[in-house]
Structures are given as C-alpha cells and as structure tokens.
C-alpha cells in the first residue's frame, strides 16, 4: 500500500478527500481556504506521484481541485521548506522538460509515513464532523 497512502480506508466510511470536504461545507467549495497543515498533506500527496518542482505541485493541486482551493503560491513554498527541514521531503536542482533549471522535491519514507498518519487522522475527523452535521433533530 505504500506510495498511495490516500487509499487508506477509515473505519466506517470510505470516502475520498474531496467528498469529505464537500460534505462538511455543504457544497460551497469555491472560496475554500486551505487549513494550515492540510497543505502539507496535499503537497505530500502530490509528491507520491513523482518528484515535482514547486509549480508542478501547484498545477497538480489546481487540477485535482478544479482551482477551487484558494491558495497563495508562496504558502506552498513555505510548506515545502518547513517539510524539508523536518526531513519529510528532500530537494535538489534539476532540469524541467522544457530544459529550465528548477528545484525538484521528492517525498522521503518519513514523509510517506507522515502523510499516512495525517490522512488517517483527517478521515476520522471528517467522519465525526459528517455524523454531527447530518444528524436529524430528535435523534439521540
């Protein structure tokens, strides 16, 4: 299962991340601000595909979310530097397909473990929120 940690199933419900968020916010995703810490998780998820440079990660996230995640590009770099310091990702300069020089990030085993743990927590959290928000008045 390593390398695709987001396939983790969390107890009661098997949901993709997108669905969980949608349920929680009641369908209004356009201005969704990315919660701190969640960005780390998202960037790590992107890197499970392959090593990417910063812009590639941005594009990947935008592609997955349909540009609905409101995210400053600078925040991504802050997250990446922080994670680099913690040893969750590592980076080195390389060349893009268009032969431009860019800094490529790669997830480390430690980063994979971190992603798995965070994602599990997030599912539990989302499930709990979902149960509360969907509860019908009069139910115990």
């Amino acid at each position: 299962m390593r390398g695709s940690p987001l396939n983790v199933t969390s107890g009661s419900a098997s949901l993709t991340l997108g669905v969980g968020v949608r349920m929680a916010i009641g369908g209004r995703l356009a201005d969704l601000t990315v919660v701190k810490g969640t960005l780390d998780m998202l960037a790590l998820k992107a890197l499970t595909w392959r090593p990417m440079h910063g812009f590639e990660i941005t594009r990947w996230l935008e592609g997955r979310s349909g540009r609905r995640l409101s995210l400053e590009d600078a925040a991504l770099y802050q997250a990446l530097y922080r994670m680099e310091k913690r040893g969750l990702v590592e980076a080195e300069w390389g060349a893009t397909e268009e032969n431009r020089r860019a800094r490529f990030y790669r997830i480390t085993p430690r980063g994979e473990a971190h992603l798995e743990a965070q994602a599990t927590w997030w599912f539990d959290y989302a499930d709990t929120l979902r149960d509360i928000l969907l509860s019908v008045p009069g139910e115990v």
Partner: protein
Amino acid sequence: MSEHGGHDFRRVFRVLTRKRSDIASDVDEEMRIHIALRVDQLMAEGRSREDAEAEAHRLFASGEGTVRALHALARERDRRFHARESWQSWLQDLRYAIRGLVRSPSLSGFAVLTLALGIGLNLASFSVLDRLLLRDPPHVIEPDQLLRVYSTVELPSVGAQTSYWIPWPLYQSLRAGVTGFGAIGAYRVQERVVGEGMDARRMRVGQTTGAYLSLLGARPVRGRLFGREDDAGRVGPQALIGAAYWESHFGRDPAVLGRTLVVDETAYTIVGVMPAGFTGTELRRVDVWVLADSRSAGNMNWQIVGRIRPGTTGAGVDAELMAIHAGTEAEPDWFRSARVFAASVRSAEDGREPFEAVLARWLAVVSGVILLVAIANVVSLLLARLARRRRELAVRIALGSGRARVVRLLSLEGAVLVAASGVVSVAVASVSESLVRNALFADEVAWTFSLFDVQMTAALLATVLATALVVGLAPALRAGRDQPSGVLRAGPHGGHTRVRGALTVFQAAMSVLLLIGAGLFLRSLERVAALDLGVDRDRVIVASAELPRPTVFTVDAFAEYDRHETEVFRRLASAARRVPGVEAAAVAVGLPLDGGSIAASVHVAGMDSVPALPGGGPYASVVSAGYFETAGTSLLRGRAFTEADREGSEPVIVVSETMAARLWPGRSALNQCVRIGRPDNPCYRVVGVVKDVHRVGLREQPSLQYYIPLGQQSMFGGASLIVREAESGAVGWPGLRRALMDEEPTIRVVGLTWLRDALDGEMRPLRLGMVTFGLSGGLALLVAVLGLYSLMSYMVAWRTREIGIRLAIGATSGQITRLVIRSGTALVAMGVAIGLAIAVWSARFVEPHLFETRALDPAVFLTVAIVLLIVAILAGWLPARRAVAISPTEALRTE
C-alpha cells in the same frame, strides 16, 4: 542507493560551503521560475503578457514580506541540515578515533589501565572519606546541631585523659537543668547476649535513655521509639531492634511488635524496628536498642548527646556544662576535678579526629597525586603517539580537513580512552574499596557503600570528566599549534622532554617511598607470622559457654558454682571431642594471648621472694588434662596433666621454661615444691616443664607462668573450652555449638572465636599499613612503569633519525639498546635515590607502628630499589628493541 548517497554527499558539500547570500539567491531563483511558468500557463490560456504577469504575482503573493519569510525559512532549513551533517561528522570522527585506538592495542590498553588505576583508587578513597568525614550519620536529622559531652580527667599515673565517658549523676543534673541543649540523652553500647538457646549471640546492644533516639530525629520503620518520659523504671523493659536483626531473626515479620527479646536474662518487649543502617551517633553497628533501667543508672560510663538550641554557641554550652558539673554533688571523687566540654559527635573516644579518618584523608591525598601522575603519563603517552603521527596529521590538515577537525579528532581519542577507563575503574574501585574497608573496620561498621549510589556516581562522573578534559585537550592543543609545514621539520621539544624526565624522577621517588612503607609493614607481618607464640594460633577454637550465674552472693554459693562449672566443662570437653573434625579439646581458665591468666604469687624454699621479671607475674592458668596438646604448647620435661590430676588427688603443677630456669637455676625443676598464695599453703609438686607462651599478645615481655590442674584450685569464674581442629576448616561451628548446647541445656550462649582473634588489636594497624601502603604503592609503581615506558617510546620515536645514523655508521644493536635503556634507567635511579633519602628521613614516623622491624630495614630498602631498577630496564627494553629494528635508510627518510 549509492546514487542517493552520492547526491547526499554533494548536497552536504554544498550546504557546508554555502553562505547566506547563496541561500537567498536560491530562493529567489525558485520564485522566479515559478512565476515564469505561471505566466506561460496564463498566456497559454489566452491572457496578455502584462495581465499574466500581474496575475502570476498576485497568485504567488510575492510581496516583500513573503519573500523575507521564505528567505528566513530557507536559512533555518539549511541550519538544520548543517547540524545533522555535523552530528554525522562527529560520529565519523568518533568511529575513526575508536578504530585508531583499537589498532594500537598496547598503547590503548596501557592508557586505559593507567587511568583506571588512578580513577579507581580515587573512587575507593572517596567512598571511605565520604563515610567517615562527609556523610551524615544515617537517619539522623541535622547532625551538625548534635554535640557529645567530653571530659578531661587528670589521672595520677597516666596524666590528662580525655574521653566521652560521663558518670550518670552528671547526666541527671544536665537533664534537669541544661538550657544550651534543647534535648539531651544518654546511651552506651556494649556486647551483650541477645536471645536464648541456640539463637543466643553476642551482639552490640545500645542502652539508651528515652530521649536519645527521639532527639536524633530517627523514625522507626515499624512501631514506635521509646518515649521521652519512659526513662528509668516508669514503664517495663522495652527494646527496639535493628532492621538487620529483624530480618535475620524474625524474617521481617510485621507481627514482631509486642514479642519478647531476651537480653542478658532480662525479657524486653519489642516496641519497634529501626531502619537499616541506623547506628545512632555511633560509627560502628548497633543491633538492638534497649531502654536503660534503674539498674544501669549506677554505671559511670555513659555517652551524653545533646541537640544544641538555635543561637547557642559552643563556648556558651561549655561554660554551662562546667557550672552544672561543679554543682553536681553525687559525682564520684575522681571526676570532680574533670573539665567538661562539648564536641562534634563525629569525634573519636578521645575527642579527637578518629584514626580511621586521618588515614582516610591521607589515602585521599596519595590517591589524588597518583591520579595526577597517571594523567600526566597518559598525556605524554598520547604526545608520544602524536610525535609518530605527525605525518598523518599533517596530511589531513593539508587535504583541507581543517585544524579544528584534527583537534576534535585528538580530543575524541582522549575522551574515548577516559570513558573506557571510567568503566574499568569501577572494578578497580570495588576491589580496592573492599580491601581498604576490611583493613579499616572489619565488619563492625555499618557500611552502606554502593557503587551505584548518588554520591559515588557523581564522584565517578566528576573525576572522569575532569580527567577527560585534560587528557583530551592537551594533545589536541599541542597538535593545533603545529603548523602543517612546520610539523615535518619540527624537532623535538627540549622543554617538554625535560618536564617529562622530571615527572619520571618524581614518580620513581614516590613509588619507592610508598613501596618501602608497604615493605616495612609486610616485613612486620612476616615477623608476626614467624613468631613462636608457644601456642598453635591457627587451629585452636575458643568456645566460651555462659552458665546461669549464682543468684546468692555467699562464699558457699560461689564454691558450689565453681564445682558445678568444673563438672559442666569437663562434660563439654568430652562432648566436643565427639564432634567430627575435632582432634582434641580441653578446659582452661586463663587463656594465652588475651591476658586472661591470673597473677598468683608463689613461694619456694630457699628464696625470700621470686625474681621480678619485666612481664610481671607469676601468672597461673587452671587447665584440664589434654590442655597442652590441644593448645599446641610443647612439653619440654616431665609429664603433662592426666585425668587423674583432679580435686582430691596429689597437688601438682606444670611450670614454664623461664620459671623453671629462674626459680631453680642449674637444677631440675621436677619434683620441686611450690606453695601458692601464702608460704604456709600446701605444697604443689612440679611434674612438668613446658615452653613459654605469649600471655598478652604479640609484644611480650618474659614472665613466670605456671599451670594448675582443673579442680585443684578455684576456677575464679570464667572457664573456656579450647578445641583443636584435626585440619584447617575441619570443624563446623554450628555443629560444635549444637553439640555443646545439647550436652548442657542450661547454657545461655556459646561464643566461638579463634584463639588468634585475641591478636586482632595488634594485627590491625599492621594490616592497615600493609594494605594502604601496598595498594597505593603498587598502583603508583604500575603508573610509574607505564609512564617510563611511554617516555622511552617517545624518545625512541623522536630520535629515530639519530639512531638510524648511528646504525649506519656502524653502531651495533647492542650499543643502541644500552643507550636507550641507560637514558631511562638514569632517570629512575635519580628518583630511587631521592625516594630512599625521603624514606630515611620519614622512618621515625613509621617505626612505632611496626613490629620488630626497624624502619631502616636494609633488606626492604634494597629490595625496593632493585625492583624499581629492574622495572626501569624492562620498561626501556621494549622501546629499545623497536629502535634497533629500524633500518638506517628508513630512519633517514622519516625526518
């Protein structure tokens, strides 16, 4: 993975070499690329370039604040990398240091051993010092407030004598009226019989007033203390038992409270259990505490301890003590003129620092010096190694390893050596500590030594760290000073060698001094071992058996008791002979070695009075048949006593060699008539002559001695049984005790000791001297040898070129060997001469403590000197062999 490792290495290299501006431009570049790519993307979606650029910047939020924040984060990230890398490089250096030390096992072994000896000896002496001088008495609260009352009495024959023995009446007055002490109590500790039947043993019993234990602040682990108001007769007899006794006799049974404990025929009720290690204000162990009763109040020998009231001065207390002393009428006459004062409870019986404490302090100083010398030696050993590694290190520095890195490597080598020594030193410490402890205290002191207690661990760490600092830094600093280019050309450092030479001389002198001390005590012990005491000290067991004492004090009652005792002891001797492993057994009143024989005058025909000998006498012993063969005293002429020599048979005696020669010079003593006591008493016919025995101990003056058969004289009370083992260790003591108790059930206690135990008092200082001098001297010698060896190795290493030239121009290897050995031996010889001179000077301090040995014993001096020189030659020989193995061409290339 190797590719990964390669990346890693390159990144490390970049990280280590990067500066702050590099990091910033990296971040800027990454940002620029991002925005450029974003602009491409937006333009591909159909935006204009201007529009796209504005939107890209907006999306990035590339304000000044953001950029600064990114720079800061990147810097922090790189610092972390740096820390990780430097940790890895430390580990790498550590591995390198360990590998290097393992590759030269003899050097590492010597260094570790030297330091371990030094550290271990210091730990051992610290533990002794700690117990005697530093540590508070266990379970006593604020012991600094406690003072003991001392008295100095002027005695006509002896002069002024200070002791802590105080008569009871003074205690009573103080208890009633003293204000300088907030609380005051009295106690005394004696050997008494505790328990009944087979369980009865002689134990150390503290008799205390009700207040003593509570004023110390001690708390029982079970039950309660004696109450302050429990003094003298108001409550029944009460006892507190120590934790050790609780465990050994009651199996830690919590229901022990309320049970009865018999101490010297009095039944005490156990009211509590004292914590392990509690000894009151005593250094020696106390097994049981009992409440003093009215019967003990008449006794003159009490120790008084008080807790000083806050704000009271020592001088104030002394003045008050004197005033109360002057107002106490009931004091005995001899005590009236005494000066009374208070002093620390740590002081010995005579009010001064205990002998053990003096010795412990001396040991601490000596071991401190030995550690310093050990450190100096290891440092020079490492410097010698450094001299051989100059090339390697120069290459490292030239390759860009950095001076700091080389310094670090050398420090690590030192630290590793010291750490290993710390581990080994624990073994050295525990061995030498138990040697010192046994010599100092036997097992009488309640000793709570543990290598793992806080103080010991702290002492170990402190010593190791201090040592590591010196050992690690000295060579490192030295190497740090060398210029890479200069290293290859640098010659020997003359000053340095001179210092090391002086160090060697000093060590040799110190070893000589300490070893001569050890030798003198060893010689004394040899003399003791060779001494003919007239009895066989090693195979004779003394069994004392206490019978119920007469309760009526009349002449008839004593005579009856005497007859009964004689009869019982005869039966006990027979019973003992049936015990497996027993070769012989006999009864005696007045044993040799412990001064137990009785002075009883004699009268012989033709002499107004018997000659007075320096040892005094004449002294009588009352002995049963078989006594002489049991004790191992040889019969020279005539016969020994038989079972037929008893009450009612013809009165006979056996006399000593000296007595026979003095009373009947030139004649045979046999069949002569001796009247004991008064001149008109009946005649005792001399039937035998035996060898003289040592009556009082090792140091013996000649005296007149004679023996009377058991039953023909009053026993004077106090018969003992002596038992001879068929071979060493043949007799089991519990079996012997059981056999005696079974034979006579009224026996209260059987005490078993060796006959030689009576010599302990005299043997102790000799053993003490032997152990302390021997231990410190032995270690000092080892340290000195290692030091000399390292010095010689160093000299050879640095004179390699010179040796090569000499070999090249035709010197033989014999000449070279002699040259090297001579230079080392000369230093040692100088040290030996200095050591001998100091030993001659200090002889007078040691001589009083020796036994039949002169402090200027030539054999000891000569032996020590020769040992030192032989050791010096051996220490030089190994490096010398290395020197002659050098080929001239190689030697010339080294410089």
